[in-house]
């Protein structure tokens, strides 16, 4: 009698484990692109965040259509640079045969924050608390570099006056 209980218990637990792992196997999105947490810096608008390198459709989905678009072609037609001007920020989009991606973001008022919640008017201490000590600090601005992206805060008497995301591969 004891043996039979033991074997049925064994098969039961085996089955449960199998189902669990299968369940995990099915819905888990294995190829590891769980959101773009790998991007160091980003900007948050209406709760959603985007960053340099994202496609322009991501920008338009989150921030809607810009007030105005200025265009600048390049000689030897190697793509166009488009400046999307919004009320609270201006974003540069580089358009070439590889698609159109965000190349530069500069915030113009405190309605939009960085993905760590820093906005224009915040104190320098808030910035260093959120992002740690900067790569460069020359009094008028402090910069954080992470791979291809850089986040630059303009500082005037200890207050953040400008926030810009720039590509470092100039």
């Amino acid at each position: 009698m004891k043996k039979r209980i033991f074997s049925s218990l064994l098969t039961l637990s085996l089955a449960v484990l199998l189902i669990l792992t299968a369940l995990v196997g099915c819905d888990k999105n294995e190829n590891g692109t769980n959101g773009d947490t790998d991007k160091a810096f980003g900007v948050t608008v209406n709760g959603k965040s985007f960053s340099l390198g994202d496609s322009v459709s991501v920008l338009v989905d989150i921030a809607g259509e810009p007030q105005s678009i200025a265009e600048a072609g390049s000689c030897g037609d190697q793509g166009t640079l488009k400046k999307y001007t919004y009320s609270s920020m201006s974003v540069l989009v580089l358009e070439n045969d590889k698609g159109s991606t965000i190349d530069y973001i500069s915030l113009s008022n405190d309605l939009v924050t960085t993905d760590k919640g820093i906005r224009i008017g915040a104190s320098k201490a808030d910035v260093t608390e959120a992002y740690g000590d900067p790569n460069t600090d020359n009094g008028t601005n402090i910069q954080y570099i992470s791979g291809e992206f850089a986040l630059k805060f303009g500082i005037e008497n200890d207050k953040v006056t400008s926030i810009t995301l720039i590509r470092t591969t100039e």
Partner: protein
Amino acid sequence: MSFTSYGFIAFLVLLFGVYFATPCRFRWVTLLLAGYVFYAFSGLENFIFILATTVSSYIASMVMKGMADREDAYISANKESMDKDAKRAYRAKEKKKRRAVLIVALVFNFGILATLKYSAFAVNTVNGISGLFGATPMRLPSLLLPLGISFYTFGTMGYLIDAYRGRAKVEKNPAKLALFVSFFPSLIQGPISRFSELEPQLVDPKPFSSKVFFFGLQRIIWGFFKKLVIADRILVAMNMLLGSPDSYGGGYVFILIIFYSIQIYADFTGGIDITIGIAEALGIKLAENFKRPFSSKTTKEYWERWHITMGSWFRDYIFYPMSFSRSMMNLSKKAQKRLGKNIGAKIPLYISSIVTWFVTGIWHGAGWNFIVWGLLNCAVILVSDELTPLYRRFHSKFPKLAENKAYLCFMSVRTFLLMGVIRSLDCYRNVGRSFAMWGSMFTSRGWGDMLRGGMFDLGLSLFDYAVIGIGCIVMYTVSKISGDDRVIRDKLYDRPILCASLMTLLTLSVLLLGAYSIGYDASSFIYNQF
């Protein structure tokens, strides 16, 4: 340094020059150095792993050899005083000790492979399970996979097991063993060579023969043709299809299956042609990895024609040892008593098949889709094995059918499609989505817009489809002419003018139609993440 980079071509030219310049006796040294130089290109930190495998296998094999010699010496020393049973008991005891050494070496080497390749997957799965209960996920370890680790580990372990079984002569010179482990062409994606077949050729190579050298070159060019002109061209469309799978349902899934079957055939057999071609040019014969796989009538036959060296490795070192182990046989006997003779006899076959296919799946990649891919293949083989009596009765009713051309063709197409469907698990990389996509083939209307020109906005123009079409026809005719034992080059050898012009045309088409350089994004073998 991938096979399709200019650097690799330069490396090859240099290697051929230096190899044939060194005197025969020291050619194996050049090969060893070439292998390590090649391996260094993939990153110096990888060296630790390949050296660890080489050194550990060398030590294990020498220890086992020492034990075996002592055993023979002991037995021959007191042959008279021991009767048959004592001798058998002593041999069994000694064998157990050697077995322990073997197991330590196996666990060590497979341990390296497992930690590097599967730790991320294991943590991912555990996170998944704990995630179900709301636990916070552990950090995913991101370990760089050394180049070709799955291939050289399996090749070396095969050698160790053969040495344990006495099937392979133990290599006393560690450098020569290192050469076997890191023989550079087959390091990246096989074929997984057997020590007894490869080692003699590596250590005392045959003198230079221009016929064999040019056969090798022809095969290399043929490999590049398949890889660059066909495989990498299709890759463009496949990336599009897989970029956003949800928007490419229905007919597009069928297209993906066909594309992937052609692409993986051209890519993998092309890569192996280059590998075997390089070895042949160096005067070394490697085992064939493919024998016209798409001509197979059943799934079982398919797996005897596709990636042969892997199949035979799993068969000889996992499937058979497991099926014929004492515990399996006792289990079968007990099962026969309790569940009846018929089912009981099948137990060893079922259990070892499932385990072997599970390991085959996990070997291909650390992901559930690979495991399910393996188990599906296993299911198809076992089910069709169960149904053989049914097939036999069916064929006895229509005797002429078995020879009927159309029926045979139907069987090949059926196997081709079945393998294509199962293989597409590799593409979707997610079990749930794969089944959903297969389902959508019969439901969603994707067929309509795909046929109404949707094919042309996948990044392939009419010109590309034409090239792929002609490429497939060329591949088919060459494989038809050469048959299973690849005689096409011998046939061409007697007509040098025809052979030279064909080869020039082939090289030119690779240069002109190949999907390489900046016009196409970097092309790499699908199997390179091994």
